[in-house]
């Protein structure tokens, strides 16, 4: 299994096979931010663990070659982070990104370019927010018959606040493309949260969906769990953990580790 450990924006540990070419460019006079370049040449999976004990900034460029299926899992812990992604997908490639965040403040900008026909991008972001977090995501369908499915789930506790700005673009001529985005924030405080789901579609022969929800659980869900005798606070916890687990395709161990993060900040 491919694995990277990045501490304070520097690669501290790497276990990589031939399917991934990694280059690390330290910040210099021209670029004031460390750059991590990942080129995926064969179908594979990569886990990246980020640990920051000081404010960090990092650029990450990911290129997925033709006919390659790439699965990326990113586990992010620590203090405030700023990160910018530049993802590029070639013809007949697919990229499945799963992110589990537990960071004290987050600023993320991402650009994902589906540059080749039949390219598919699936992204699931989970974050437990205790401070300000803002995500600007752009997905650009630059080829026909491309597909993107974006799921952003946030749980807002303590002093957390989350902003999801998600823009999907399908230019004219990129027929038979699919663009879906589903954004949901569960909020347990009074801090401001915002979701801007934007679809910029200049082609008729496409499927495009978006949804945005900020709030707590549906009453019926709580009623169902409580009707079996579960106390309200425990039912809320069960539902919140369920929300954090949903849509992910990860090993139980990773899911449990992430759930435990919630225990540390729960009311």
């Amino acid at each position, binding site marked *: 299994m491919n694995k990277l450990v990045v501490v304070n924006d520097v690669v501290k540990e790497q276990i990589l096979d031939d399917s991934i070419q990694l280059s690390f460019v330290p910040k210099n006079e021209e670029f004031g931010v460390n750059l991590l370049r990942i080129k995926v040449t064969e179908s594979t999976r990569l886990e990246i663990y980020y640990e920051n004990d000081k404010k960090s900034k990092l650029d990450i460029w990911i290129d997925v070659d033709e006919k390659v299926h790439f699965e990326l899992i990113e586990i992010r812990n620590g203090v405030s982070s700023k990160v910018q992604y530049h993802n590029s997908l070639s013809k007949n490639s697919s990229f499945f990104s799963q992110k589990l965040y537990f960071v004290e403040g987050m600023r993320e900008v991402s650009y994902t370019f589906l540059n080749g026909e039949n390219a598919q991008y699936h992204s699931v972001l989970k974050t437990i927010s205790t401070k300000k977090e803002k995500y600007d995501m752009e997905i650009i369908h630059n080829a026909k018959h491309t597909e993107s499915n974006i799921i952003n789930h946030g749980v807002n506790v303590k002093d957390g606040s989350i902003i999801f700005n998600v823009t999907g673009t399908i230019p004219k001529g990129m027929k038979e493309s699919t663009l879906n985005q589903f954004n949901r924030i569960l909020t347990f405080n009074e801090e401001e949260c915002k979701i801007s789901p934007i679809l910029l579609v200049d082609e008729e022969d496409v499927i495009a969906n978006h949804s945005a929800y900020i709030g707590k659980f549906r*009453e*019926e*869900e709580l*009623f*169902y*769990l*409580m*009707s*079996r*005798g*579960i*106390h*309200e606070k*425990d*039912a809320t916890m*069960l*539902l919140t*953990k*369920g*929300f*954090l*687990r*949903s*849509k992910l395709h990860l090993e139980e161990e990773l899911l449990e580790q992430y759930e435990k993060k919630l225990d540390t900040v729960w009311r």
Partner: protein
Amino acid sequence: MHSLKIKHLNVEIGKKQILKDFNLEIKSGEIHVIMGPNGTGKSTLSKVIMGDTNYQITNGDILFDGKKINDLKVDERARLGIFLGMQMPLEIEGVSNADFMRSAVHAKEKEEFKLYPFIKEMNERVEKLHMDSSMIHRSINQGFSGGERKKNEILQMYLLKPSIVMLDEIDSGLDVDSLKLVGENVMEYYEKEDPAILIVTHYQRLLDYIKPTHVHIMVDGTIIKSGDASLALEIEKYGYEKEKEKYRASIGTCAVESILKHE
């Protein structure tokens, strides 16, 4: 011996009155069946007893073992031993059946809860209900068919061992074999645990397997006739109209027009 008594219950949702001076008492060892046309308040009754706050009780009491429970929250009622098998059990992604049931049984049994007997009993009942064992580790009702959801409700009933069991249209969505299986499992529970059971249904077919001690006809928020199992057969044969007409005659035309206008 446990009992649930409903005295002069009036219930509204919004400003619409659903239950009107409703009275009923069920005790351990009894199986009551409530039948009636659509929209008559049968499901509302079970939800109100369970403590659904979308409904407002404007008058009357719900008593469990003689104690008023009107103000208890849904989870408190459940821990007393009241169970509602729902008509349309929800799908909740991410929460596994096993975690859900373990939390529920733990909430009831507290420090007496033991994991191994819980798992053993759950596995045995899953087998008896002909459920796929993988369902235990899947999200609550996610991807379950209508029949599987109903079996899941019966499984929960077994694990929680309630003394008052309400089953709201437990027969809907079940094929012939599943109906028989669910009916037999309910009867097995009845014989083993001696609960009071209240079943809401439209059809007599469930009663081929569950033998009621009392049958009630409910129209427009109140019981208009009670009897034994033979009443269900009459309804199956003649429908509700005959009983409605008799009711009309017994209370006078003007009152009936007012009562039946919502049908």
